[in-house]
């Protein structure tokens, strides 16, 4: 007798994940053989694995552009354009994460091979998150994503802030995870399945268990809202972003957020289209609150990492706005395209901004105040120019990916207004808070160019590469967004 569960494994569909997973396991042991003074070998090896996955992804792009989606592991995961697009983002982010750490870790005396291995593991979590087609997989992926990040946040163990960040992140993360699990349990109780498509069918066919399912959906929202740092589940963000080593912060602010959004979209759009107006309103309100709080509190920050943390909260709000717009099935594809595009634009811009922050940070962990940027316009004109570009992109000024992303998000939301008038109010909040955000983003530019200062920065080749690549990407997304947006729209899950 053959066991039925083993019939449709389809390993090829998850090849990039397998490559990284296998490589991470090998690297973990291999790292034991690498002498302490040569830990950068581990970094390069990790890069090799990531590049391998990138190559696999590259081949999958064409494949899935033709075929649409493919299920694997008996329908537990779905690989489609959406997940491929996001996996590209994750792998790129991980590559940047490695490059950023190359000089940072030894400079701060915290170089250990585990950094790179953990980075690979959390990347796997994100990638699985983007292809999860079952609530159980969502949970497993979420934990796989989170646990390495808890450790990475505390990677600079001798610094108290780092330790504090790790503990806070862990405690609150576990707290939020518990809600997620509870949500899964309630949903299962209400529908009798954890498969997303199965839930969608059950919700439409069986009205009896709807309250249970609806509350379950609400709790799922909490668990994922925590990951994307939406108000009121955002409180951990500033403390953790500030305390964690900066490369980890950079990686986390982009990867974990994108992972959260990937799961959020998949769960809401695939499993709960029948109660779209419920979650639509809820998310619209959360989006409005998030934009307001993130942008307003960011004004009074003097620490660049903390400022970027609040900025990251604010941007989660903008993306949530597009998620809320996906409630109308007619423009779901546009809205999802907008989310994915925004995530890419935000990833490039934010990684770039953190790169500059890393370059300015001093060996003892100080140098993260915005005032430390003074004088950079003179001493490091190119870097300052790139930073100015990133700040403009985050504000949403022209010729940057940030502007295009915002335009798409607002357009998506406006298209959905007929279904949910509340969205109009949230769009207005979004536009107004974008204006407010100019205040603290432009402050960085002003400090760099107008204020006299030492303008000290260490910019090794790896950081230069990242900086050039992210700045280039930001510009490209700003100037010719067409092809990427088309890809993003085609990435829509079916």
């Amino acid at each position, binding site marked *: 007798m053959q066991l039925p569960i083993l019939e449709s494994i389809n390993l090829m569909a998850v090849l990039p994940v397998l490559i990284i997973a296998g490589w991470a396991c090998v690297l973990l042991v291999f790292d034991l053989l690498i002498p302490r003074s040569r830990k950068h070998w581990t970094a390069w090896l990790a890069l090799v694995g990531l590049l391998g996955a990138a190559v696999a992804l590259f081949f999958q792009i064409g494949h899935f552009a033709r075929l649409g989606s493919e299920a694997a592991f008996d329908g537990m995961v779905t690989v489609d354009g959406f997940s491929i697009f996001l996996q590209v983002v994750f792998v790129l982010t991980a590559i940047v994460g490695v490059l950023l750490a190359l000089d940072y870790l030894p400079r701060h005396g915290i170089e250990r091979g585990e950094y790179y291995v953990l980075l690979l593991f959390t990347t796997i979590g994100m990638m699985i998150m983007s292809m999860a087609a079952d609530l159980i997989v969502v949970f497993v992926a979420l934990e796989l994503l989170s646990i390495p990040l808890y450790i990475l946040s505390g990677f600079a163990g001798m610094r108290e802030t780092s330790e504090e960040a790790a*503990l*806070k992140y862990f*405690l*609150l993360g576990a*707290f*939020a995870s518990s*809600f997620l699990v509870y949500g899964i349990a309630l949903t299962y109780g209400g529908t009798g399945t954890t498969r997303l498509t199965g839930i969608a069918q059950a919700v439409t066919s069986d009205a009896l268990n*709807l*309250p249970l399912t*609806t*509350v379950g*959906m*609400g*709790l799922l*929202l*909490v668990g994922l*809202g*925590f990951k994307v740092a939406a*108000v*009121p*589940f955002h*409180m*951990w963000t*500033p*403390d953790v972003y500030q305390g964690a080593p900066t490369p980890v912060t950079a990686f986390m602010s982009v990867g974990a957020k994108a992972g959260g959004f990937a799961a959020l979209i998949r769960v809401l759009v695939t499993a709960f289209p029948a109660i779209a107006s*419920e979650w639509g309103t*809820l998310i619209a309100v959360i989006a409005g609150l998030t934009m307001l*709080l993130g942008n*307003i*509190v960011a*004004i*009074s*920050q003097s620490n660049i990492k903390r400022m970027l943390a609040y900025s990251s909260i604010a941007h989660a709000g903008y993306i949530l706005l597009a998620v809320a717009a996906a409630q109308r099935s007619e423009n779901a594809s546009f809205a999802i395209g907008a989310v994915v595009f925004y995530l890419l634009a935000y990833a490039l811009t934010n990684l770039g901004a953190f790169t500059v922050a890393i370059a300015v940070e001093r060996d003892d962990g100080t140098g993260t105040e915005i005032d430390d940027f003074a004088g950079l316009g003179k001493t490091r004109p190119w870097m300052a120019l790139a930073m100015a570009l990133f700040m403009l992109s985050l504000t949403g000024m022209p010729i940057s990916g940030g502007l295009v992303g915002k335009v798409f998000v607002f357009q998506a939301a406006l298209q959905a207004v007929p279904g949910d008038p509340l969205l109009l109010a949230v769009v207005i909040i979004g536009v107004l808070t974008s204006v407010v955000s100019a205040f603290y983003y432009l402050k960085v530019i002003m400090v760099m160019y107008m204020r006299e200062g030492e303008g000290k920065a260490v910019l090794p080749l790896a950081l230069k590469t990242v900086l050039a690549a992210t700045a280039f990407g930001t510009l490209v997304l700003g100037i*010719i*967004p*067409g*092809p990427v947006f*088309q890809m993003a729209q085609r990435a829509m899950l079916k």
Partner: protein
Amino acid sequence: MNSLFSLIPLVVFFPLLGMLINIFFGRMLMADENSKAPGVIASLMAGLSFVIAVLMFVALLGEPEGVEVPFMTWFSISAGSRTLSIPWTFKVDTLSSVMMLVVTGVGTLIHIYAIGYMHGDIDEQASKRGLSSDEAFDLKRRRFPRFFAYFNLFLASMLILVTGSNYLVMFVGWELVGLCSYLLIGFWFDDPIVGIYNSMAGRKAFVVNRIGDFGMVMALMLIFWTFGTLQFDDVFARAECMRTASQFECLAVDAAQMVETSPNFSLMFGFGLLQPISFGAITLSFQTVMIAITLLLLLGATGKSAQIPLFVWLPDAMAGPMPVSALIHAATMVTAGIYMITRSNVLYAMAPFSADTVAIIGAATALVAATIAVAQFDIKRVLAYSTISQLGFMIAAVGLGGYVAGIFHLATHAFFKALLFLSAGSVIHGIEHGHHATAHKGHGDHAFDPQDMRNMGGLRKHMPTTIVVYIVGALALAGIPPLAGFWSKDEILLDASKHDPLIYILLTIAAFFTAFYMGRQVWMVFFGQPRTEAAAHAHESPPVMTTPLIILAVLASIGGLMNLPFGRLHFLAEWLRESVAYAHVPAAGEGFSITVAVISTVLALAAIALSYIIYGTKPLQEGQADPLRVAGPLFTFLNRKWYWDEAYEAVFIRPFKCLANWLAFTIDWRFWHDFVHDSVIIQFFDGWAAILSRPVDMGIVDGAVNGIGRLVAGASSRLRRTQTGYVRNYALAVALGVVAIVAYLLIRFFAN
């Protein structure tokens, strides 16, 4: 589709790659003083591009109807169901293939030539500035790669122009070549003596071209408004349809097909196509709109192809280094206008009035520029005016509908004019060397102009290769059979004689002058005795410069083979028929007229003979005035270029400056500043301020303003205070959020 076609993007990307390499690694590549690496890489990229062009040609032999190779969507704007999308598609057809071959082929040769020339040019600059050897090396390290980066960028831009499948992509190329032209004209903007003139020349080229671009942009908008698309094929198909059938019918027949091919249909449905074309407040007939479009396109062409009235920038553009003049301002960029009109032949066929205007402008330019060339002394200026004149020939040809003749002349002209410019460069290079040799002995002076033909003479002994190729080029230009120029010019004249006697006469006279000024130049430069020390010490250029010259000379000799007007030898005509709908290919026996050929040949020989009598029998002596000075005021008139620049100065620039001055001083300063601002407003304000300042003094206004600021800041810091740092508080926030969400969902659920 032949899979070779999919290589076409490379034709643009090889030069782009070359540019990037030279930008980022150029300094590194310049290992030492004599390093040629940047130039070699640039030439290699140009050569690879040429290979791609040849492959396209081969592929087209099998599929002469041509293809469009999609590359990417440049932008796509969708609003609801309407979409405007501009794809960047490569159009490979027989017309663009001819352009590609000319651009990359001649381009490659000039790239190779430039390796030698620019080394010499930069050395010359360094000595002009009196730089030490280290500084000179530094200058070379910066400028040599920069030149080739610009050059490769130009090549890429020109190829974008000719391969674009819609007007907008073509316009992008159009602007990019303009940019390269600007950058390269002012390449020596920091020359200690003439730098300011170089940059002024660049600026002039740029500004004059903007006038032409105004026409282009307006034409593009009109085309989009009228046809709802910018794709060449769609525009022509729709134009064709709107001409032959009634508009209503056309719509019905075309509708299904259009919906399939273009999403713009719904957009058009609102305001195009139907009956007369409506522009909101006014409505014009289709005919009028077509005339407007084609005339505006013509304005663009007169800018880029240096025709009356916008030709004034091209002579000044000779301030750029010689390879620039040869490649951009003779062989390729300036022919963009001819290419554009040929590409739009369908539109011109519908607007006979515009086509006639094109022909008249071309013929007039040909004649005017040829007469000016007769009275110039600068070797490059003669060639510049000659270029304008020859472009006039081509424009006249396409205006008459002789698209084959126009493109044929474009190709042969690219060969022999590039040849002439490069040989002139070789001459100047030689003279400069000669000048150096003497300057070291204390003879030279800085006012010495190595381009003035009066400073030359007797160079045939020192430059044996250059004189041969120069004479080949000159004879080709003069139209002496069997060189390339004869065949192409003859075809234009034949077309003109059939369609419009006036144009034929103008062009024939222009051809006479052409032969004359070329004869004058050859006698003045190469024969007689050296008129300066520099000329006496000139020497031949290195092989890296002369080899391309020899290749070009061969091409200029046998280029006519591509389109002999005899029966099946009429290759180019057959070739272009595939892509130029209105290319009238003459039937057998009509392609050649012995009368026209004899007349033009005899006139050319006569002109050369005349120049021999005037300049050849009694060579110019040192300090002697030009024999043509006997014509007195007429000669001055020609020498001053018909006072064209002065006329512009008087008619446009001075009134404009007067207006600007008046606005600045009288209106802005005296009226606004002195009167309105200083008197009226300030007194008004002073008065009111006295009244208003009372509450300000009392702190009311300050209070209000600061209050708002404090409100935002207060909100910010108060909200920040929620960030207590205690995990328990954070967890409480999460829990409260959960309660709120669950409560909302349950209330909402049970409320329903």
